[in-house]
């Protein structure tokens, strides 16, 4: 896994290439996988007799063609950047935090509880709620981290299973103690206090200051991972655990730390969605940020800062998918298929090697 995410950069380094080639090698696999995904979705669209170009045009129009579209793209990019950062932090340590959604869910619960149950000054309230949500996510991530640390239990399976447990616990607590009595059909908590809401600074839509917080968290995480001592230790643990261990690094503790950091970032997503977008805890509020986070991280190809552009790209897909459903009547599940096939092919490095070999062959002639 860690190999797949770093081969591009490693290859560029080995060849001693400079800026452009380095970026090109890092981008090759994501671009190739996106192309494969577009081919597959186009074929499916042709089968149901829809012109794929119409769909992609509607996608871009919906995401970038209007103020509302742009605000919608930014609104989705906000959590998606963070989700990508959370996954990439895990990747750096050689971890697979597949249970991102569970940490997001609990973060949403705790963030909204702080939002409606705690009295705080206006400026401080959202910040405390988001940090509280982050801590909830970190604590939830601590469970699979410790199970991996002391029992060697696969973090992929345990964290995924704990996602379902997080949903059960949160829904139970909300139904039992915090339920909004006026809503009979949907399970949701009471509203958060007005001063805890993150206001939108866009004329339409829901783009809050959280967008800059997301980008800031990504840059901070990138800086810490690339420049700090602990970041170096985490990267060494992921790159070669045995070497790091024999070099005297506290690998087990760095593993747990990275898992919790990943969970913290995930928990922030849930809290921000709850107080910023829904202004309360809504059952099943997460539209699949866990999966999306993997796509962002894989497109960013192991770069934390790269999650910012990758998050915007996926934000375009999310915002545009509503438009194609609305205007063309094409189910937005076509976008899931596109995302799924990108993830399916993004680590298929021999596909790249074959194509490179083909090009080399052609140019030699």
């Amino acid at each position, binding site marked *: 896994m860690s190999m797949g995410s770093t081969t591009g950069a490693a290859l560029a380094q080995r060849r001693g290439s400079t800026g452009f080639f380095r970026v090109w090698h890092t981008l090759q696999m994501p671009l190739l996988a996106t192309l494969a995904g577009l081919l597959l979705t186009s074929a499916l669209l042709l089968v149901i007799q829809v012109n794929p170009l119409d769909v992609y045009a509607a996608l871009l129009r919906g995401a970038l063609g209007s103020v509302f579209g742009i605000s919608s793209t930014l609104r989705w990019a906000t959590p998606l950047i963070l989700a990508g950062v959370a996954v990439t932090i895990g990747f750096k340590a050689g971890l697979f935090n597949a249970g991102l959604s569970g940490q997001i869910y609990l973060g949403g619960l705790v963030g909204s509880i702080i939002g409606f149950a705690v009295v705080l000054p206006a400026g401080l309230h959202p910040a405390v709620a988001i940090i509280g949500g982050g801590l909830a996510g970190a604590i939830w991530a601590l469970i699979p981290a410790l199970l991996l640390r002391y029992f060697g239990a696969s973090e992929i399976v*345990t964290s995924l299973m704990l996602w379902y447990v997080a949903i059960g616990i949160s829904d139970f607590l909300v139904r039992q103690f915090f339920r909004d009595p006026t809503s009979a059909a949907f399970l949701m908590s009471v509203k958060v206090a007005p001063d805890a809401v993150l206001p939108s600074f866009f004329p339409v839509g829901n783009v809050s200051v959280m967008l800059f917080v997301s980008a800031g968290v990504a840059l901070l995480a990138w800086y810490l991972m690339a420049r700090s001592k602990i970041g170096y230790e985490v990267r060494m643990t992921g790159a070669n655990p045995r070497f790091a261990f024999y070099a005297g690094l506290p690998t087990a503790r760095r593993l747990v730390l990275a898992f919790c950091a990943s969970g913290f970032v995930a928990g922030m997503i849930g809290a921000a969605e709850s107080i910023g977008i829904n202004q309360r805890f809504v059952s099943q509020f997460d539209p699949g940020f866990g*999966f999306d986070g993997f796509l962002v991280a894989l497109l960013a190809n192991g770069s934390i800062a790269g999650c910012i552009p990758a998050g915007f790209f996926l934000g375009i897909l999310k915002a545009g998918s509503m438009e194609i459903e609305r205007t063309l009547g094409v189910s937005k599940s076509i976008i899931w298929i596109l995302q799924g096939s990108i993830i399916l092919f993004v*680590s298929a490095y021999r596909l790249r090697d074959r194509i490179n070999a083909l090009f080399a062959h052609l140019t030699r002639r």
Partner: protein
Amino acid sequence: MEILTLSLVSSTLVVATPLILAAMGGLFSHQAGIFNFTLEGLMLFGSFFSVMFTVLTGNLWVGLLLGALSCTALAVIWGWVVVDLGADQIISALGFMLLAQGGTVFLMIAVLSQTGGVFSPLQLDIIRLPWLNAVPVLGSVLNGHTLLTYLSWLTLPLFLFVIYRTPYGLSLRAVGEKPEAAAAAGINVRFVRYSAIAITGVCCSLAGAQLALGLLGMFTDNMTAGRGIIAFAAVIFGRHRPLQVFLVALFFGFAGALTDRLQGFGLPSELLLTLPYVMTVVVLALSGWRTFTRAQSGHVKA
């Protein structure tokens, strides 16, 4: 109201059927050295395709057969991505899971013009053998299941035989343990891996069909709800050995049946529904075994 009754044993067998089928199928891939995390996606595809083809053809058995074929074809495509294109097994399997969620929704709209869910006109029959009824205790427990439940029990002796007593099984284990040595001994490593993945596809398709056609009589969006991941946990915990995997899957089935039973006792259902997942985590932790070492992840060795 008693908790531990014969009907609990009977419903354990019902709940365990899809888990056993998927886990037994999954262990085949693992025996060949493929970490097959696609069980969840394959089950979802399997339940959808079996319902879709049953609706289209109006024949349950044709539906099951065509469902298994298309599901197996998709499993082999994933196999191509990991075996020949060298993709990461876990990452591509996550993509496959998303592809299954999107693909089933898309096909339901495109082929059947339905959203949310689709009913099947036919369901798997409950088999009742009169002579088995005469047996005092076993009769009420073992009787009255679908064909696929009985088939799931048959996989145990069948797979034990195939894996440990046939030349193919020997190749399978050789490829799983040391692909280079197997290749040097003249075994076609690619064929063994593709065939193992195909067998996983067939089993997971039947597991999905049991959910859709045996239990509910319909397909709904994302109806597998993590059962494929529980089956994967059974493969991991059972160390991809048929008997162990079978028993672990049976135990997870018991957890599910117990959950269903306890719901009648006024306990909060949200918390109860987490029981199978909690048990899976506890079992994995208790195994105390390096269930997933870094060396096993990543790319398939050629």
